[in-house]
């Protein structure tokens, strides 16, 4: 059982070794580089893969994920688009229907609201509405995050996308998941919302040396424990690990689950854990009311009612439009202390 992040990485290294034995081991990369590898591998392999987005060319992408790609692949395959989120996603939907494999970058998930009609009413509907005759297998990469960016640039709407049948929604927290999921998304036949996080691009982690993909399904137990289950995803999962670490020192053993894929949602893995720990705390950066934690809590109490010894706790952001002032922002976004407090409340 891992009790520190270093130990976890060791664990992951071990676990992944098995998977990548053929290619001879693991190496450490940043979350950003993991994404870059996924994109280039897929572009090198499949000439129909192309990138569309604002400032992804000469500027290199607002979070520098696509730097150098336009030089390498040319303007035909790395297209700087106008600031027209609705149009860009729509163009990608059409291109995907007609046989290309577009990876759209929306600078941040906040701007995805402008494209949400294309995502929800078009991309997610194409396959069903036309009786299975067409698909729109585009990948939308976008970033959640915050950092004194103000009310309109600090939100995260993963829970909304998780509501929509027809979409697959992924929100990886590690370089390994980021690369494996992104490759799976590109190779798959369904529209995928692929949500990154601006504050973890520089995080480092181990990935298998060779090519690998991770199917877009399933939560993962990041750390085993016996007293309480802490569930989160994206940066929240890292926060949860940190909190678990500290709790461990106080003698509280927590099992940490990274949801990773938000639609379809793997409630099963959470329920299994709760059967063991009998306690659950969900951690998210979103506003708590109608954040994804609501669904997880509602679904878990349904399947694991008798296993629960305490109310499921939810930790989320304070429900206000994000103020700019850094002291307020720090209070609003949940931190380790809030997670620890919520865990203790269940004990």
């Amino acid at each position, binding site marked *: 059982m891992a009790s520190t992040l270093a130990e976890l990485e060791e664990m992951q290294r071990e676990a992944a070794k098995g998977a990548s034995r053929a290619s001879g081991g693991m190496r450490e990369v940043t979350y950003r580089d993991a994404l870059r590898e996924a994109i280039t591998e897929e572009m090198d392999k499949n000439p129909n893969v192309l990138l569309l987005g604002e400032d992804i060319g000469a500027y290199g992408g607002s979070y520098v994920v696509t730097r150098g790609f336009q030089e390498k692949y040319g303007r035909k395959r790395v297209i700087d688009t106008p600031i027209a989120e609705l149009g860009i996603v729509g163009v990608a939907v*059409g291109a995907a229907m007609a046989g290309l494999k577009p990876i759209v970058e929306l600078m941040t998930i906040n701007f995805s609201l402008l494209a949400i009609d294309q995502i929800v009413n078009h991309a997610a509907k194409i396959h069903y509405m036309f009786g299975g005759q067409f698909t729109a297998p585009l990948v939308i990469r976008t970033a959640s995050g915050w950092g004194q960016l103000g009310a309109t640039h600090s939100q995260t709407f993963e829970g909304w996308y998780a509501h929509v*049948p027809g979409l697959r929604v992924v929100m990886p927290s590690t370089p390994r998941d980021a690369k494996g999921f992104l490759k799976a998304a590109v190779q798959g036949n369904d529209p995928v919302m692929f949500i990154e996080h601006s504050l973890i691009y520089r995080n480092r982690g181990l990935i298998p040396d060779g090519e690998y993909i991770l199917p877009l399904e399933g939560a993962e137990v990041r750390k085993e424990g016996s007293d309480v289950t802490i569930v989160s995803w994206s940066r929240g999962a890292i926060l949860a690990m940190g909190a678990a670490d500290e709790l461990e020192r106080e003698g509280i053993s927590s099992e940490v689950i990274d949801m990773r894929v938000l639609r379809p949602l793997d409630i099963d893995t959470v329920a299994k854990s709760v059967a063991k720990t009998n306690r659950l705390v969900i951690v998210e950066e979103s506003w708590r009311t109608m954040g994804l934690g609501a669904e997880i809590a509602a679904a878990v109490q349904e399947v694991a009612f008798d296993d629960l010894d305490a109310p499921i706790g939810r930790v989320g952001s304070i429900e206000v439009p994000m103020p700019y002032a850094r002291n307020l922002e720090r209070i609003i976004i949940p931190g380790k202390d809030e997670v620890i407090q919520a865990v203790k409340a269940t004990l």
Partner: protein
Amino acid sequence: MSRAKATTTNGAAANGASRRRGRSASKTDNGPGVDALHALEKSELLSLYRQMYLIRRFEERSAEQYAYGKIGGFLHLYIGEEAVAVGAIKALSPADHLVTHYRDHGYALAIGADPGPVMAELFGKETGTTKGRGGSMHLTHVERHFWGGYAIVAGHLPIATGIGLALQYQEQDAVCMCIFGDGATNAGAFHEALNMAAIWKLPVIFLCENNLYAMGTAHQYISAVPSMATKALAYDMKAETVDGQDVLAMYEAARRAVEWCKAGNGPYFLEAMTYRFRGHSMADPETYRDKDEVEQYRSRDPITAYQEQLIEAGVADKAVFEQIDREVEEQLEAAIFFADASPFPDPSTIYDYVYAEPIWETIARNGASEDSEGPRG
């Protein structure tokens, strides 16, 4: 400051001189449609008539079936606008692509969908063009790359642009034609799409059916300019306005557009002036326009006008049309029979098509929706 690119129609561009026959032209000038009248085979000319008549009668029968309660939801009839679809589609080759708005019956039929599956779709049957899933607003015809009707106004313009991008990317000798109404030109999606099509010089024909109304609102209240083609100026896009009630003029204009796009000149904006003779949908009380106005437009019926034109030009006589009409009636009788006789989708298939990849085990396991306790879990 960019120069105006919009022109009015002229018959100069369309020609098929090699196939020109010695038919006498009733019109003395070489106005819109005259070249086509000369260039097209008799069978082609009659086929245009047949298609228009088929659409007209299909719509009338649809209205009737709606009244019987066999069709639900919205039903947007194309009556009065038949010449636009028929003329435009005539200019497309099998390699070309089509995307339309919800007023799509005419396009489905013009591009070659069988009336049977189209009617079956309106009935919500498994044998419909989208297996009863899409309904009236989402018809398709896969073989001819008709990617469907779309019900979010202007939402399909970016999609058509994306198809155009794919055609260009894969260096195909094909265009994507995109149909929408005058009302759609006021939506942001329209402008975002036109801009991208223009920047990237994509082979997309933006065909605006200007029927003067968006639902119940006349264009002067909702568009700053009376001509929708004006809006192409903002993108330095080649544009043209054509009489959409004249099937041959429509065809010629669409041909010009196809040629322009295929020559690599980028997109083309075509505005077809037309009028819908019926309400916006079956629910429309038509409180917003004068009976007189409607009557005036009805007197310029594209089908009877074309019939007269063909008779005048000596292409066919009354008997020929009567024969076609009879055949169409039979075809529609058969289509309704087919639709009636077809089964509704099997409820057990309700989860089919949500994802193109198989539903993964996790979702099946976690019982959110598909668990064993029944569909609603």
